[in-house]
């Protein structure tokens, strides 16, 4: 790409077929610039999660090129995916522990990340003692602590109740504004994608492909009240129309 913007993630002509014969993704072109937050919405089974597994390197594409120039990625799973026998601190420090970092360093980094998600004071608790929203904060902190250039979010707030979910969206975009990572955020929710992202990508199913893209011009950090502005509703309306167009 000749643009001045450094790329954090790029998909070029990516196809993914499974052994069962289904085509999960077909001809996907997707670029996420450094410091850009891209939301991906689409119906169930459109290959959103496959997109993320390919971007993280957990699965390999059948054809096409995927590159992550920054190397490491932070991955935030659908569920908090915490190890129930480890304390909050030790869960957050896990990636650094597996990377063989010295204990003092990883604890310091983990504490930084725990403070960033607003969980200081809870670092000694076990995941079972926390609420769903707090567990998701721990999961966020764990991804944050390695300070990767690219974050992949696999519908992380899908299992949370509405109030917690809205609050987590606000927290996440505050952290995004503070740290300036690049993000690819998968979700079912149009409002969630529009609220968080600089750009929203609409996918359709069978085969999974990108059918539309929308710029979201609002500057970060965004106030919670943005969700109720007419401009916001207009974009959300356009995105969901593109999503519905797919269904017919």
């Amino acid at each position: 790409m000749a643009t001045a913007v450094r790329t954090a993630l790029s998909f070029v002509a990516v196809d993914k077929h499974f052994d069962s014969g289904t085509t999960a993704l077909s001809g996907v072109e997707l670029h996420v610039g450094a410091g850009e937050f891209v939301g991906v919405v689409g119906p169930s089974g459109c290959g959103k999660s496959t997109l993320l597994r390919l971007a993280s390197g957990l699965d390999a594409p059948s054809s096409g090129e995927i590159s992550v120039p920054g190397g490491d990625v932070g991955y935030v799973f659908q569920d908090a995916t915490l190890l129930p026998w480890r304390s909050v601190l030790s869960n957050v420090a896990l990636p650094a522990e597996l990377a063989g970092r010295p204990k003092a360093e990883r604890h310091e980094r983990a504490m930084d990340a725990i403070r960033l998600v607003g969980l200081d004071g809870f670092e000694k608790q076990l995941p079972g003692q926390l609420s769903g929203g707090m567990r998701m904060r721990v999961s966020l902190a764990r991804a944050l602590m390695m300070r990767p250039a690219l974050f992949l979010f696999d519908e992380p707030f899908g299992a949370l109740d509405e109030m917690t979910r809205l609050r987590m969206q606000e927290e996440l975009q505050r952290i995004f504004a503070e740290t300036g990572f690049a993000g690819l955020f998968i979700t079912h929710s149009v409002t969630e994608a529009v609220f968080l992202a600089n750009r929203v990508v609409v996918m359709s199913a069978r085969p999974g492909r990108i059918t539309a893209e929308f710029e979201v011009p609002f500057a970060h950090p965004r106030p919670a009240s943005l969700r109720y502005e007419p401009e916001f509703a207009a974009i959300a309306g356009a995105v969901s129309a593109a999503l519905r167009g797919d269904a017919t």
Partner: protein
Amino acid sequence: MTTNTPSAAHQAPSAPIASADHEIAGAAAADSPAAVTTSDTRSAARSASDAVRGSAGAAAPAPLRPRRGPVVLLAPIGSLVVAIGLWYAVSYLLLAPARRFLVPPPHQVLRVAVLDWTHLQPMLQALALTAQVALSGLAIAAALGITGAVVMSRARWLERSLYPYAVILQTVPILAIVPLIGLWFGFGFTSRVVVCVLIALFPLIANTLFGLQSVDRAHHDLFTLQKASRWARLRKLELPAALPAIFTGLRTSSGLSVIGAIVGDMFFKQGAAGIGTLLDVYRSRLQSEDLFAAIILASLFGVAVFALFTLVSRLAIGSWHASGRS
């Protein structure tokens, strides 16, 4: 953490696609390993009910907790009284005096066998030896079983080639191989331990393997993304995740190892007598009071071992897994 309740009220008119926000979220069910062994379904059921009680307790600790106290204490005492009553009934109502030695009444067992130190002392000594056999057997079975399961979990082909032998171990009648064990290991302590190991091994293999293989896929992905070594994955993910299942196996096998030790006593009588040896002696001499006392002692020992492992399991994993609390 402030909530934004007022603004949420605006949501319905300005966000027509709000319904897309609601998505059925699979409740993050706590991973409760089902017991693999046949004989432990009861404890699995108990741990399931504990999980339910545990979550209710967490929501509202005081009022929802089932009432403890008098009922909890009275029920087992009541059942004991009924059991002793039935015992007396059989001794005195069912059996003619000439045949009463078949089921001597409780007070007689107490007087002849338990309160007489010359009778009780050899029993306790034998029980101590049997306990030594059982715990040695259990320790060896645990080491072999957990190691074996870890080996099998490393590759599908390893599991396919080794697991059938574990199943055969479970199904082969111990009686059939007793002569062979005697020939190989002699007719004393070692062979008793071998019987114990053979009986206690399978639940440990099966439960550990089940535990190692039931690790959440997302947890595996987490470790894959961090490029964790197989060793780190085993030590920091698979083994800790398998602990609840391993403890289920240990509880089952602890009971089996006591049975194994008593069976071993009966067949391999060289050296000091175990409680199983004494049972056989009392039977042959028609010392039915001693026989009853020895049976009760052996059973109490089995219960104590089971309770010990329940306690150990609770201390080890109770803080994060429901099966540890009971």
